[in-house]
């Protein structure tokens, strides 16, 4: 266990999300009172009382989440009809034993606390005088966003659809891609108040049993007020919560989620979040983009190598510049050195301070660009370009080469496909700049070693963060620095340890003679 790892908690065998059951028997008034007491001062809850076949019947539902028209047509009309049942016994038999109503998936329950939860989940609860059983009818109708195009993970050639907030829509998108009964979706409920649905998806036979158990166990240990995004869970299940590096992958693309399921990884969907978590993760996955698999491998490999180069630029370029100008001017050619020195001549700050001013200004601009209302977004661009760029140089506050360095570093950080990983790299740039400003290239090396040993020590659900380079797994290197052609990637990555490692076999073509 390293410095950044999580202190081990005492494992509580009892799930954090269980609650006591309440049974109130067959009495109609007692149960109606329970509902009314529970939902008092909640005017959006409808309590309806009616008589069907001389039997008192109570209906409770959340007005804004139920399709009332459908309920009237498919359920209520039949229950109140004298033809539906001739006696109370027959009514109970038809409704509660046979569930002979035209709505699918109606369920029977006796625990009133569970019934309360179902009301809040958009179900209609019907109960009768003389029978303790209650009928829960799922006629939920909620406004949801239509499946739209990806906003952040764009591709040139590849599917455009992105996940939405509704968990069921998201799972449908996955099911449409992986039509196998081995694709499992296990549901959990997290959040004392939000009771958020969490689905753990995996492919049985490809995903390691221990991984699934570990994920479920860690999620079940969370006792939290509410889960409004997958990040709530992410931070609670991380192995190294103090590490700046992300330990799970996020995506808004169903194809990426499906691909990771096919690699034997686990996908965690959280209701209300269009971004599921993918586990486990290695550092190299943050440098892979969906685009890599849709373009030809030459292009993908080149782009991937470019990404690695820009990763280094993003992390080290300003520090390198500081180190060279402060400690090792002999490294650059004389003419370049003279022009750099000339432009720095008027600048009153040392290289480190200059770099800090510019980097912080750039980070401020970037953040402002995201948060500003769209109408005035353009103004930020103009301000940034003029004030931070041109005017600052003309006023002699910063040097022109520094503006170039910071701009290039800024661009470099946006080339990294994973936003959170790119952000980590941007953050780590600052301590390295201080080290480079104090010790030159030696400081730079110290900074890199510190980051490196931390990353070597990291692991995500038992998979080393730098896998497959440290520890070295030569067979898995086909999809790391380059993207090998599909016909070479015949085996699944071994780090997930699935028993079925075979991914691709190409049968020999019959028309082998078509060479001319």
């Amino acid at each position, binding site marked *: 266990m*390293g*410095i950044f790892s999580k202190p081990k908690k005492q494992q509580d065998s009892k799930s954090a999300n269980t609650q006591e059951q309440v049974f109130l028997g067959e009495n109609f008034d007692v149960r109606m009172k329970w509902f009314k007491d529970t939902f008092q001062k909640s005017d959006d809850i409808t309590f309806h009382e009616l008589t069907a076949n001389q039997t008192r019947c109570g209906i409770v539902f959340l007005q804004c989440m139920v399709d009332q028209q459908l309920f009237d047509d498919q359920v209520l009309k039949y229950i109140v009809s004298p033809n539906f049942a001739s006696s109370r016994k027959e009514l109970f038999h038809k409704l509660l034993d046979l569930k002979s109503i035209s709505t699918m998936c109606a369920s029977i329950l006796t625990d009133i606390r569970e019934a309360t939860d179902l009301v809040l989940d958009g179900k209609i609860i019907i109960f009768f005088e003389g029978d303790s059983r209650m009928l829960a009818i799922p006629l939920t109708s909620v406004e949801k966003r239509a499946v739209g195009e990806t906003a952040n993970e764009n591709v040139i050639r590849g599917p455009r659809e992105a996940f939405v907030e509704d968990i069921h829509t998201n799972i449908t998108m996955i099911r449409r891609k992986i039509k196998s009964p081995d694709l499992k979706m296990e549901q959990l409920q997290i959040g004392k108040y939000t009771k958020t649905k969490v689905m753990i998806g995996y492919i049985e036979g490809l995903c390691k049993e221990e991984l699934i158990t570990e994920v479920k166990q860690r999620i079940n240990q969370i006792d939290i007020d509410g889960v409004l995004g997958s990040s709530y869970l992410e931070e609670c299940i991380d192995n190294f919560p103090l590490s700046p590096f992300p330990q799970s992958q996020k995506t808004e693309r169903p194809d990426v989620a499906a691909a990771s399921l096919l690699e034997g990884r686990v996908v965690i969907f959280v209701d209300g979040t269009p971004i599921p978590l993918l586990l486990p993760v290695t550092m190299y996955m943050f440098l892979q983009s969906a685009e890599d698999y849709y373009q030809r491998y030459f292009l993908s490999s080149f782009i991937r190598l470019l990404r690695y180069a820009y990763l280094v630029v993003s992390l080290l370029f300003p520090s390198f510049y500081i*180190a060279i100008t402060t*400690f*090792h001017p*002999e*490294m*650059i*050619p*004389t003419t370049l050195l003279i022009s750099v020195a000339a432009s720095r001549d008027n600048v009153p700050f040392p290289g480190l301070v200059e770099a800090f001013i510019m980097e912080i200004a750039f980070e401020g601009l970037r953040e402002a660009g995201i948060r500003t209302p769209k109408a005035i977004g353009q103004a930020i661009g103009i301000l940034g370009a003029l004030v931070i760029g041109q005017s600052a140089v003309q006023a002699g506050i910063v040097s022109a080469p520094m503006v170039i360095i910071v701009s290039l570093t800024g661009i470099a950080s946006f080339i990294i496909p994973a936003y959170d990983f790119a952000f980590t790299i941007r953050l780590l740039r600052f301590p390295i700049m201080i080290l480079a400003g104090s*010790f*030159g*290239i*030696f*400081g*730079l*090396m*110290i900074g890199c*070693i*510190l980051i*490196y*040993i931390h990353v*070597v*020590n990291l692991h995500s659900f038992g998979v*080393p963060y*730098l896998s497959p*380079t*440290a*520890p*070295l797994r030569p067979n898995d290197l086909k999809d790391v620095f380059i993207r090998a052609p599909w016909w070479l990637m015949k085996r699944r990555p071994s780090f997930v340890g699935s028993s079925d490692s075979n991914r691709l076999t190409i049968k020999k073509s019959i028309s082998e003679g078509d060479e001319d």
Partner: protein
Amino acid sequence: MKTAQISQNQLLLFLILYFYSTLIGFAAGHLIHLSQYDSVIVLWISGLVVWVYAYFTIKLANRRPNEFFVHYGKEIFPYWIHILVMGFYSLSFLHSSAFVLREYEDFIVQTYLSETPNWAVGGILGMVVAITARLGIKTLFRTAQGLFFLILIADLSNSIFIGKELKWDRWMAFITNHSGHGIFTGSYTVIPFLGEIFILVFIFPYLTQKSKTLKSVSWAIVLGILLITVNLVFLLLLFGPNLTNHLTYPMLEMVRYIRIADFIENLDPFLISIWSTTVYLKISIMFYLSVLILAQIFRLKDHRPLTFSLAAAMVALSLQMSGGTAALTSYYTKSWATYAYFVEGIPIVYLLMDTLKRFIKKRSAKKEEIS
């Protein structure tokens, strides 16, 4: 303590870097001073001797493959003698790490950071070493595995770019210039350098597939020496033995010769910082072993509480151990080799004693059977 964490591949790559690190950086000048053009022969003779030595140390470790030397050594020698020897080893490793750290401090301060005090460089590198040791041996070997390819690329590119500067007509001297005395004195210094492979005795339980250890070590010796040979030959072809002998850091001077397309004037800070990572690895393993042995002597469950305090001791020792580079070099050239033979010879004494004890035991068992 959790064992079986280091794969044979990690061991192989680590050992190559381990051999390469200081022999190239700090000892090349002295070796060329002693053996001149025979340095290549010296390297391969030393490699052969060290292979034989490694065979015996692995034999000792293999007798109790899942136990630590500190623990089983008391079965071979009386308890107090063994504890004293292990205490000596802990100090010796601490001294070695401090020694390499001091060499590195002097190098960096003299070459690049002329106004930075030694303690600043020592302190910051000491901190990184302490963190590495705290994270454990698995992290250390994985770090080496990842760094290996970077270092190999840096070294190869160095060799390629320096090629055109070499004076190839010197090659004849490798065939014609020989001196028996040079070979002997050179080998006497290089053998203990490579003989530091005896650290295997202390980390043996951490290895996986222990039966393949000798094979990995053999490859490490061959590949490590090959890498060093290329660099030494290039040094001799570039500067010749006399100039190399008078340079404090000949490898640095060689790297400074690189010119790429008139754009990169001096690549040395960049290449030297990559090479520095090998020195960091060497200091880290020495320091880790010192901490590990101490923790095992005191029967601690965990070595981690000792790391930062011992790291402070290591940095202090590195700052106080000598008055300057001259004193450091004189220790290295005059006394280090003999001292190292003593340190590295101890496992062989243990092996002999263990064999003797086994032999006596067998004989007495036979006698009992007969009687």
